[in-house]
Each structure stands twice: as structure tokens, then as C-alpha cells.
């Protein structure tokens, strides 16, 4: 619901639903909130049934805080653990059949552009590794090849968490899971490379043990998707249950995995760099003065 269309008329504030008033008066609607202000404002996300200490939950929480315009954002999800939380936020959530999230988001983002013109409406897909790299694979790839302008976030817990531990394309080779007792026989899929080949304008990996970095990549991905093209974030969001990680060790696990196979990487296309610099003042993407570039005189 956008503040541009639903305005508070003087004297009628109290007739607005409390949840909406909270978001406007004490929450992120209509103003900038940052990760460093957490604990001091009312978050759009509310209670949900995801497991205690789940890193995916933390990532979703941070991602929603990082949305540049939460009141003009629509999230799209699919079967899997994440939707249990994403659906419990004061942000419209669209849920379809398992794996159709990028097809739904393509239609949605096109429809919103027809309806609202150049006023940005951000569409953000958040789906599991199974939903993204296995069941939704062809829709994901097609949306990228078609340069559909929305953000795809993979919540990569390296397993089908919601259904009790089957291997996914993103599970590591050799991993033994409850429903993959012989160990996975193939390598983890390289979805990052595929995103680049398919022409995504922004591709990043992130781990939730660095909240400010999560904030920064989500902001960039959503802004770039407004005009430049598809953006992809792959986040390691461990599953305590299927990988038997004690909940107070979840961040230690994240650090270990970050050092092992989830180092921070960020690819930004030249067009996206220019757009971020010119439209949103990102200094790091301003063209470097010629003298600063070695061997390129």
C-alpha cells in the first residue's frame, strides 16, 4: 500500500487500521530506516512459525528492513520455509505454486509498470534453493534472459528444509541428509555463474552474519531492478534442523561457511554502476579519474 495513494486525512487517522498506522508512525513507511536503528522502530515483519534460531529468519528480517521503499514493495514466494515468515510482514505477499515465483513476478512487475507508470513498485522474489535452482529453474532462467526487472533472492540452506531434508541442486557434493542417506553425488550448482551468463545486472553472495552487508546488497539489487534489469542475490541461510546446528552456534557456522564457499562476491554491470552513481549517488561507482586507472592511458 503506497503512501502516495493512501493518505491520512486530518482527523481520520484513528480510522486507519492500527497495523498500518504503526508502520507510518513508528515503522519504516515513508522514511528511511537502517540496520543500525534496529530495536528502535517497529519492523514490518511480525511473529511467524519458523524454527527458533533459524538464520533464514534473520536474513528475511534484515532483507525487509533493507527494502528501499517497503510501502511500495511486493514480495513473491513459493513453497519452502521462508514463506512462513515473508507472508507475516506488512508488505503484500504473493504466493503461487511451488517453483512458479519468477513467472509470477515477471507478470506482476510488468503489470505494475503498466498500472503505475514510472512510479517505482519493487518486486522481490525470495525462495529456497530447491524452489530457485530445481523446481523453479526454468522460470528463473527465463526471467533473467528476458531481463525482467525484479530481484530474485535465493535463501540457500543447501537442502529442502520444509519437507525434512532431501538434497537440492545447491546441496554440496558428499553431503549426507536424512533423505539423501548415500550422500549427494553431484556438485553444488553454480547459480552465480548462470545469473551472469543470463545477463543479470547485479549478482551478489551474502551471509547473514554481516547485517550491514545484507542491507547494502539488498538496497543495490532492488534499486537496479527498478530500471536496469534482473538482479540476483544468493544468501547462505543455514537450516539448524537438517544440518543439526545448535542454535547458539548458527553464526559460527555462518562464518565457517562464509570462509569456505560463501565469500562475499558482487558483480555489478557497467550500466548498473552508472545508474547507481547517477541516480542514487553511489560514490563507489562514479567513473574513476583516468589517472587512477593503471595501464589504461
Amino acid at each position, binding site marked *: 500500500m503506497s503512501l502516495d495513494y493512501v493518505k491520512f486525512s486530518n482527523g481520520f487517522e484513528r480510522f486507519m487500521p492500527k497495523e498500518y498506522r*504503526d508502520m507510518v508512525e513508528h515503522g519504516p513507511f515513508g522514511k528511511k530506516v537502517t540496520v543500525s536503528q*534496529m*530495536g*528502535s522502530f*517497529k519492523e514490518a515483519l*511480525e511473529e511467524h512459525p519458523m524454527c*527458533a534460531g533459524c538464520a533464514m*529468519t534473520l536474513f528475511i528480517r534484515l532483507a525487509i528492513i533493507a527494502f528501499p521503499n517497503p510501502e511500495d514493495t511486493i514480495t513473491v514466494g513459493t513453497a519452502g520455509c521462508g514463506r512462513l515468515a515473508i507472508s507475516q510482514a506488512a508488505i503484500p505477499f504473493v504466493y503461487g505454486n511451488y517453483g512458479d515465483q519468477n513467472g509470477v513476478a515477471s507478470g506482476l512487475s510488468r503489470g505494475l509498470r503498466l498500472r503505475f507508470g514510472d512510479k517505482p513498485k519493487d518486486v522481490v522474489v525470495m525462495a529456497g534453493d530447491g524452489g530457485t535452482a530445481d523446481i523453479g529453474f526454468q522460470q528463473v532462467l527465463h526471467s533473467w534472459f528476458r531481463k525482467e526487472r525484479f530481484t530474485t533472492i535465493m535463501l540457500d540452506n543447501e537442502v529442502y528444509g520444509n519437507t525434512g531434508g532431501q538434497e537440492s541442486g545447491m546441496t554440496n557434493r558428499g553431503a549426507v541428509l536424512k533423505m539423501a542417506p548415500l550422500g549427494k553425488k553431484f556438485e553444488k550448482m553454480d547459480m552465480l555463474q548462470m545469473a551472469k551468463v543470463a545477463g543479470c545486472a547485479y549478482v551478489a553472495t551474502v551471509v547473514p552474519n554481516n*547485517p550491514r552487508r545484507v542491507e547494502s546488497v539488498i538496497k543495490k539489487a532492488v534499486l537496479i531492478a527498478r530500471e536496469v534489469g534482473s538482479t540476483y542475490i544468493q544468501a547462505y541461510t543455514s537450516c539448524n534442523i537438517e544440518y543439526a546446528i545448535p*542454535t547458539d552456534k548458527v553464526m559460527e557456522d555462518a562464518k565457517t561457511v562464509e570462509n569456505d564457499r560463501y565469500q562475499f562476491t558482487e558483480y555489478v554491470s557497467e550500466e548498473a554502476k552508472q545508474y547507481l552513481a547517477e541516480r542514487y549517488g553511489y560514490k563507489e561507482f562514479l567513473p574513476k579519474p583516468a589517472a587512477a586507472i593503471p595501464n589504461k592511458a
Partner: protein
Amino acid sequence: MYLVANVNVEICASKSCKLCTQYCPEANTIQYSEEMGKEQGFKYGSAYIAVDRCKGCALCVWVCDSLAKNNAIKMTMIDQLPKAALTDNITYGDKSTTAVLASPMVG
């Protein structure tokens, strides 16, 4: 009974780094109040927990012990907390929240 996180205001207020708030997986759960430490003479405010939201994962204990190096959070049986913050008793100000503490035991 079950465990929930409990912030020791005296210890937290000496540092008040707000790190735990950024790592709790649950939204609107670890809150921050600028008054909470100050009314007891401390320079900064303190983090506190909306215990009805806490799922008892102890991730915040790890954050305070290992990242903040301040050991201000302990897991505590909910019926051993004298008074605690509950979501309904929290109000939001411009830069901080205020909690009226009450018995966490409902009914």
C-alpha cells in the same frame, strides 16, 4: 517452563552496542531503550527483550559474549524473571522505545 533471553541492564548499559538487536532472528523482539540504563545513572540505554516473542535460541547470548564481549545476556526460565517487557507494553518514540515492565506469567 522454558528459557528466554534476559539482558542485565547494568552490564549492557556500560556498552549498549545494539549488536544483539541486529542478530536476533525474530522481529520486534530485542528492543532498545535509551531510558532503561539512564534512570539507574548509566550513561547509555539498554537492550531488552519482548519475552513473549523470544523463541529461546540463545543466538543473542553468543552475540553479546563473542562479538560484543560484554556477557550481558543470560538464558533464564521465564517464571524466574521478576518483571519483563511484553509486546503490548512497548511504545515507540522517535529514536527509542519505552517498555512498562510486567510479570511475564500470563493468567
